[in-house]
């Protein structure tokens, strides 16, 4: 170890309490940054999973004009071919066809406009969480009666309907262009923990829906999940081209739910702002700590300059002190960060039934470790500390030896 490094190290050890306090500012800033990133990452994943895996799926295929026009006559005519193709795609983890129509449900007590969704119960269970969200009755069964209908608990409350109650469903038939009505009995009540879905969706079996809507074998939507949810954000994936043609288009959730995508971008911006604020506070703490140390040693710097130390060498000494301080503090910060993230990930953070921009946080949030927390963030903190050291180092290097030594020489 060179004398400059030894000098820097021993200077830091001179006032251990001040060094420890300054180091803790740096350490806790890194820990806070790491935890914020881990929490945001966990929250983002939970939100995306809540928004996609709850019902909509990571991606969907529609007739090119269906979503833009909300035109129920725009259908996927040959869903079996698409479903076969999905079965061959290695990235696809599950898929289900759906028939969709805006309609009316009426109970003995009330009626309400809803979206009627025809689903294949078995296939649907591989895409959405409806089967897991049943709080009363049973999930749809292919072997059960044709009059099965599922509704959310809030809708059941509004309709004052209970299990077994009769419900009349009315939808528009695309062939006859007339209202088609059919009687169902409430077979199950679900709670997806998302107000919009619990209040506005009813599920019936796909063949009954196709018959009522006059679709023959056609469907409006094929929802599918990917092996990793993040694949849905990869627009360069060949899957999108293979599943799209002149009539139909496959889109990931970022295109299907642009509001969610925008909100996540805003979340990232918030993280950045929080990071910048933390950086500024930590930087001011470091500047303060180093300045205290420099003022205490002004006389000593005068001596160093008097005996021939160049100003640049004095600057380097202060920067070396800052570097050693930062490296030690970053080590402590990393350990604290790992412990905090690991602990919070194991116990989870429960936001209850909170909805953010209409997306229910249906799961406990578990902060996530990421490589950047252990590579990019420590480097940023190191850079911040060194930048914060520049001002005190320049101040020390500019000390006039005659003034610093005026008590003696």
């Amino acid at each position: 170890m060179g004398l400059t490094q030894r000098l820097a190290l021993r200077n830091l050890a001179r006032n251990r309490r001040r060094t420890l306090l300054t180091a803790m500012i740096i350490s806790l800033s890194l820990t806070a940054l790491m935890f914020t990133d881990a929490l945001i990452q966990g929250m983002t994943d939970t939100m995306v999973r809540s928004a996609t895996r709850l019902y909509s799926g990571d991606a969907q295929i529609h007739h090119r004009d269906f979503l833009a026009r909300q035109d129920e006559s725009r259908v996927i005519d040959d869903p079996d071919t698409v479903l076969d193709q999905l079965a061959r795609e290695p990235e696809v983890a599950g898929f289900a066809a759906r028939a969709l129509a805006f309609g009316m449900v009426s109970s003995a007590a009330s009626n309400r406009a809803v979206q009627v969704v025809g689903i294949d119960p078995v296939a649907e269970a591989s895409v959405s969480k409806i089967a897991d969200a049943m709080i009363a009755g049973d999930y749809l069964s292919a072997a059960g009666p044709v009059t099965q209908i599922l509704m959310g608990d809030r809708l059941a409350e509004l309709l004052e309907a209970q299990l077994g109650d009769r419900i009349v469903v009315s939808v528009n038939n695309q062939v006859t262009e007339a209202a088609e009505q059919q009687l169902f009995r409430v077979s199950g009540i679900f709670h997806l923990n998302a107000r919009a879905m619990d209040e506005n969706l009813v599920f019936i079996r796909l063949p009954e829906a196709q018959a009522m809507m006059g679709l023959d074998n056609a469907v409006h939507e094929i929802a599918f999940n990917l092996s990793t949810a993040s694949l849905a954000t990869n627009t360069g994936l060949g899957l999108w081209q293979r599943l799209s043609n002149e009539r139909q288009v496959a889109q990931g959730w970022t295109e299907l739910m642009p509001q969610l995508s925008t909100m996540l971008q805003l979340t990232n911006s918030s993280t950045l702002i929080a990071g910048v604020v933390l950086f500024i506070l930590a930087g001011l703490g470091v500047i303060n700590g180093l300045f205290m140390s420099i003022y205490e040693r002004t006389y000593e710097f005068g001596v160093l300059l008097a005996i021939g130390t160049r100003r640049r060498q004095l600057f380097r000494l202060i920067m070396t002190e800052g570097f050693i301080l930062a490296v030690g503090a970053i080590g402590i910060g990393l350990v604290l960060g790992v412990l905090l993230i690991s602990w919070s990930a194991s116990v989870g953070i429960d936001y209850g039934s909170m909805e953010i921009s209409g997306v229910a946080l249906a799961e406990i949030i578990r902060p996530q470790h990421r490589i950047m927390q252990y590579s990019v963030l420590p480097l940023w903190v190191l850079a911040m500390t060194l930048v914060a050291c520049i001002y005190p180092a320049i101040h020390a290097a500019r000390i006039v030896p005659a003034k610093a030594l005026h008590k003696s020489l």
Partner: protein
Amino acid sequence: MSPVIETLDVSKHYGEGDTLVKALDRVSLSIESGEFTAIVGPSGSGKSTLLQLMGGLDNPTLGQVHLANKDITQMSGRELSDFRRDHIGFIFQAYNLIPVLTAAENCEYIMLLQGVAETERRKRVYAMLNRVGLAGREGRFPNQLSGGQQQRVAVARAMVSRPNIILADEPTANLDSQTGSDLLDMMHDLNRNEGMTFVFSTHDPMIMERASRLIRLKDGCIDSESERGES
């Protein structure tokens, strides 16, 4: 013999207008190699200011300071740093050792700045500490040494880089009379045996007694000069 250090009409003024203070006013003197000179005078007479200017720690308002035949008032900051490092040794009133460095490291520091090889550094440090009577205390930190021992380290530090001149500002002011006397004897021996040039700023009669030349300052001007034979 050419002078080691020479001041030519050197003035140092502080403030301006009604608040102008002439700390030094047109002081010209030269110090020859091997002198043991004391600059004396009452407080505020300009002793410390003169020593600062001779050491290149400050620039004069007017005049020139020549050290080893070079005008140090024309040097850049970096040139001046290197010049101080290579040609001037300082001894301060309050010892002013670097508290986090051992006695040996304090002496070694200047040679490190000079780029002296490690083995040579060690050899010179141990020899110099031995010469000032601190053999066996090389690894002690300043706070583990007495005031007299710390000032001996300061003398060793000033001399180990083999400067042309040593400027000492009241080096005995913080020492008891016996320790001060011992230290002066040691510096006097170094002056006589090694030919090292010493310039003191002092009030101490012990230094005045040993000095080969006395320069008395008053109100920023040289009031009188006297030379003595071998003391």
